[in-house]
């Protein structure tokens, strides 16, 4: 499978650069950064062939990659929409109305938690504390935080997503 999956040459360069941050023989430390790169380059999630490819690049056993990929919540183990709406709902966000935001998104996009909209564009992921407690309610979309959310602001963000006019990274 790894014959058909390969990082772009410039990505591979980036991967090699990352492995040089660690002492000789400690390239396993690059695993999480490289999984982030792989997820981004190969469709937003990590299927088994992608994880096997990462194992091959870092000279690890596939199981070493699987056990890490499945442990961390930022790695998606199934396909997701182009826009993953991660809405924080823990304590401080709950106090400032995160449930209302979540309910609005569930209804508006007709999706359940962890689900993807019928058009394949949006996935909703309730999140447990994203460190934006003072600017709640909030959600993460790609690389960025959208804070002090209101229902109107969420509608605007979703519309911008549909127009392909929102920055993800």
């Amino acid at each position, binding site marked *: 499978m790894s014959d058909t999956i390969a990082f772009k040459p410039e990505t591979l360069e980036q991967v090699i650069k990352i492995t040089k941050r660690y*002492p000789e023989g400690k390239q396993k430390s690059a695993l*999480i950064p490289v999984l982030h790169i792989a997820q981004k380059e190969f469709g937003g999630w990590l299927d088994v062939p992608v994880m096997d490819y990462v194992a091959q690049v870092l000279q690890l056993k596939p199981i070493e990659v699987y056990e890490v990929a499945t442990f961390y919540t930022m790695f998606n183990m199934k396909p997701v929409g182009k826009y993953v709406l991660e809405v924080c709902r823990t304590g401080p966000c709950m106090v400032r109305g995160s449930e209302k935001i979540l309910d609005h998104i569930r209804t508006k996009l007709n999706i359940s938690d962890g689900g993807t909209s019928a058009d394949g564009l949006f996935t909703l992921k309730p999140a447990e504390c994203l460190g934006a*407690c003072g600017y709640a309610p909030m959600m993460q979309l790609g690389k960025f935080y959208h804070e002090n959310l209101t229902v109107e602001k969420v509608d605007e963000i979703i519309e911008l997503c549909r127009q392909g006019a929102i920055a993800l990274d």
Partner: protein
Amino acid sequence: MSKKLLLKDAHIEGIRYFDTYRKQGGYEAVEKALKMSSEEIVEAVKASGLRGRGGAGFPTGLKWSFLAKPEGVPRYLVVNADESEPGTFKDRYLMEFLPHILIEGMIISSFALGANTAYIYIRGEYSWIPDILEEAIEEARNNGFLGKNILGTGFDCEIYVQRGAGAYICGEETALLESLEGKRGNPRLKPPFPAVKGLWESPTVVNNVETIAAVVPIINIGAAEYAKIGVGKSTGTKLISACGNINKPGVYEIDMTITVEEFIYSDEYCGGIPNGKKLKACIPGGSSVPILPANLMLKTINGEPRLMNYESLSDGGFATGTMMGSGGFEVLDEDQCIVEHTMTLARFYAHESCGQCTPCREGTPWMYKILKKINSGEGRMEDIDLLWDVQRKIEGNTICPLGDAAAWPVAAAIRHFRDEFEWHINNPELAQTQNYGLAGYADPIPVPAANI
């Protein structure tokens, strides 16, 4: 007005960049420190009274002095930027707006520890901040403060940024090291402590972002001056991230002499509670520290005004006090439901348990399920005692402090707000449409001896 050491230049446009930071006296602490011996720096940090700002509050200089120094073995400094505790977002502010104070603190700390390589392990979700840090690192390198032979002193230092991938447990120092080694974030048994066997089995110091940044003013103004700020063993300044039902959420730097009341109600800080609502409860140090009802939050059990510092906040122990923790300060007004709030915290800890220890793996979801049941109006009176029993069986019975962190919010909620739990159970339908409010919380609630 509190003295500002870390955020004093935060208002200056462009302070994120080297040139502006340098114009404000940035990197003068590095120049000064590299003329000192490493022992002198460690002694200065000890004399300053600086305590770890990540939550545990352990004396930083003492931690540094534990670092093993075997010949021919590399040593590492690892900055813990895995800020993930609900209510806490202060390190994010420092890294986002003042990255150079962290880099400067890391250079000094690495020199003091004899470390030539340092890593910043940052929570993966803060995914725009590594770019800011890497830019700052590059600027520092281009100006001779990183790399080989820094300022001609013969000291070499490199700093790298490592992103995590969404696991609260990686804020625990040994789990962080496991993650940095490319593994699951499972905490290690201690001893050996990281100071002896840390990253790749080498001696390692793991310190929080704010802690390392605080080394800069300690060197700049001197340990004695730093120690004069604050009170008792709460020296220097502390960043507090304030959130919840307040008019002015945000990150504040305090000198730890102000009262909790002043912090909540003064315009300099939180600016009071919106819409004139009454204070119901507060969590002052991140979600893991005990919640206190308003009366105990504002005054100690002896009727003294409670201060925003380590000693005063913990006055009375867990029976009537709480902890400074990370400084994640959450305010709850009279409309908030303690049962629902505690349920969200229990869900958080259940989600974030690494699963290594049975009490935590099994106990945290169990607590969440019971709280969910009570919150949804399906609870039984005996569930409260069951909840108490489960949290007791988690606390102190796990490899790392996540078990305690999960147990304490539940214990404190039952200890101080048992009436509200009972009201939920006795009034299941009513509880779905309205909140308990402040009923029963006008005075300290007697704590049954068996429950302390």
